[in-house]
């Protein structure tokens, strides 16, 4: 761990998000549509995914973490701000750049039951991205396939099986093999283990870590489970209503959380032993609707330490320790 912390700053940034925004219009009327407002799903997110490291995004549902991931995957394009890949703005990409970007950034999704085509054999599923992107003779393709299968802990003969013949954990391995087939620089992991059984989760998390050590691939991990994020990530960003409210190196963030929301999330996470007593930070209410977010700091209606100015000014992210940024008027 000490090694990774010293590497933190020297590692090159692969993908950088600068003040990224994604506003979805809310329309009314079926034929004559008029815009009645917008949902600020992501509202000014900046983050850096560094080479060979994992950036974990945590937050409750509706906080914009999946929309952020979709922007990185170019499934959604940002309505504001910019995303750069190896220092180049992806809005300026030409067709070849875009093609290269798409093969360098891959994804593993939450539900391995819906992310694999049930009518395709596992071998074709894994090789599809490869054959779509480069020409390859049959022999090389077979070699690559077998290498990928072994990489994720599956057997050679399983290439001719269909997805339904596998358990959830094995399916997730297939999804990982498919993501690896193009030797990507970045893999977006959207809740990669939350649909799996408890005893299988550790297997998949360890596999992902091993792959990272071997190939130096970077991960953008989206998860709601703090323990998973702590285990997997080098760097963590906590999101609330479309904004990153706190960000820092994993150890720093968990041992010294600053933002009241981060503190509340940690206090709400379930203990690993009945004797662990946490600071009781019971948040009242629920996440407000992003259609009509509160004025000032979006967290102020639920915040136990709320100040007068919190309902007026939106706090900016400020640096409090190396790499540790918080947006809160308390500091």
């Amino acid at each position, binding site marked *: *761990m000490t090694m990774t912390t010293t590497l933190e700053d020297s590692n090159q940034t692969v993908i950088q998000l600068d003040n990224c925004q994604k506003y979805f219009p809310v329309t009314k009327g079926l034929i004559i549509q008029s815009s009645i407002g917008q949902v600020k799903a992501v509202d000014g997110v900046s983050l850096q995914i560094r080479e060979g490291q994992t950036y974990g995004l945590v937050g*409750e*549902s509706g906080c914009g973490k999946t929309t952020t991931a979709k922007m990185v995957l170019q499934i959604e394009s940002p309505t504001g701000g910019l995303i750069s890949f190896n220092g180049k703005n992806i809005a300026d990409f030409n067709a070849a750049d875009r093609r290269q970007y798409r093969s360098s950034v891959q994804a593993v999704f939450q539900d391995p039951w819906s992310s694999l085509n049930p009518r395709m054999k596992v071998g074709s599923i894994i090789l599809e991205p490869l054959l779509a992107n480069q020409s390859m003779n049959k022999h090389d393709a077979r070699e690559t396939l077998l290498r990928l299968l072994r990489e994720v802990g599956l057997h050679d003969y399983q290439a001719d099986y269909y997805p339904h013949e596998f*358990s959830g*954990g094995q399916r997730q391995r297939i999804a990982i093999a498919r993501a690896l087939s193009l030797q990507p620089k970045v893999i977006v992991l959207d809740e990669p283990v939350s649909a799996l*059984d*408890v*005893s*299988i*989760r*550790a*297997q998949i*998390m*360890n596999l992902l*870590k091993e792959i990272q050590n071997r190939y130096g691939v970077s991960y953008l991990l989206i998860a*709601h489970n*703090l*323990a*998973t994020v*702590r*285990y997997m990530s080098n760097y963590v960003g906590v999101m609330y209503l479309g904004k990153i409210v706190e960000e820092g190196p*994993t*150890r720093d963030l*968990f041992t010294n959380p600053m933002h009241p929301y981060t503190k*509340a*999330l*940690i*206090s*709400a*996470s*379930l*203990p*690993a*032993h*009945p*004797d*662990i007593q946490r600071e009781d930070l*019971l*948040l009242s209410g*629920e*996440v407000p609707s992003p259609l009509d977010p509160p004025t000032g700091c979006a967290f102020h209606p639920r915040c136990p330490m709320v100040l007068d100015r919190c309902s007026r000014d939106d706090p900016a992210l400020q640096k409090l320790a190396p790499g540790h940024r918080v947006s809160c008027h308390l500091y």
Partner: protein
Amino acid sequence: MSAIPVLDVQGLKTHFFTKTGVVKAVDGVSFTLMPGETLGIVGESGSGKSMTALSLMQLVPQPAGRIVAGKILFQGEDLVHKTQSEMQDIRGRDICMILQDPMTSLNPLFTIGSQVLETVRQRQGGRRSGLMDRAIELLQKVKIPSPEIRMTNYPHQMSGGMRQRVVGSIAIAGSPKVLIADEATTSLDATIQYQYLALLKELQAETGMAIIFITHDFGIVAKMCDRVAVMYAGRVAEIADVRDLFNNPAHPYTEALMRSVPNVDEEVEYLYAIEGQPPALDSLPPGCTFAPRCPYVFDRCNEEFPDLINVGEGHSATCWKLAK
């Protein structure tokens, strides 16, 4: 705490008779539940934890599923031999259940108010007066803000946490003796789950009901439960008081499972992972069902299923390692 258990389950077996063979979903489960006690039943999917809960309610999917052996003594009466109409009275009044997904337990076509009122009306028998007050009182108990207004809402107009609270209010309408929460907080967000668990504890303190938590999450067990039963492939692998279980897990499965869960409070470089996967219930291995994945396996494990062996007061596990 009185010494008479509110629920005493002995050797419960629920099997499914399918074309391809008998699936032993629950295969000899025994436990007792004291009034006011919280029991956790932990296990992975297919371990039989939900089927145990459904068996207690006599709601096993028919005709494939059947309780083939065992007793379920609720306040001394065996529920297995009750008729459907007798069970109807017990279900909802004495034993209640909260399921994982509140969107499927509430009817989307009726308002929250009418669904709570329906239950209240049933619980109060013929009396027609005061139904509304009682319904509002129930919604207040589960801390739904401005219940009078919320009564007119439909389920889709509420958030997941609020919906689950409504389900909770319906469950406690008849002041049950036993509340079964089957993955009741799994679909909720972390801070909302925390609120809901706190609410359940409060309601328990108020009413003295016993709670059974069916979950896959050791965190919920650590936070909420007094006793725990760990299930694996239809049987109880280990049963103990919560502290005993966490301090000295006796069954290799419990031990391995605990080591394979990441921890928020600690930095872990590498997690222990259990190899393989749970067995298919229609083709169980001959001896101990965990033997194929067990790091301590020896000859006897592959020959016969171990008995429940006592390792301490109220702490027992099914593992041959303990008999040596």
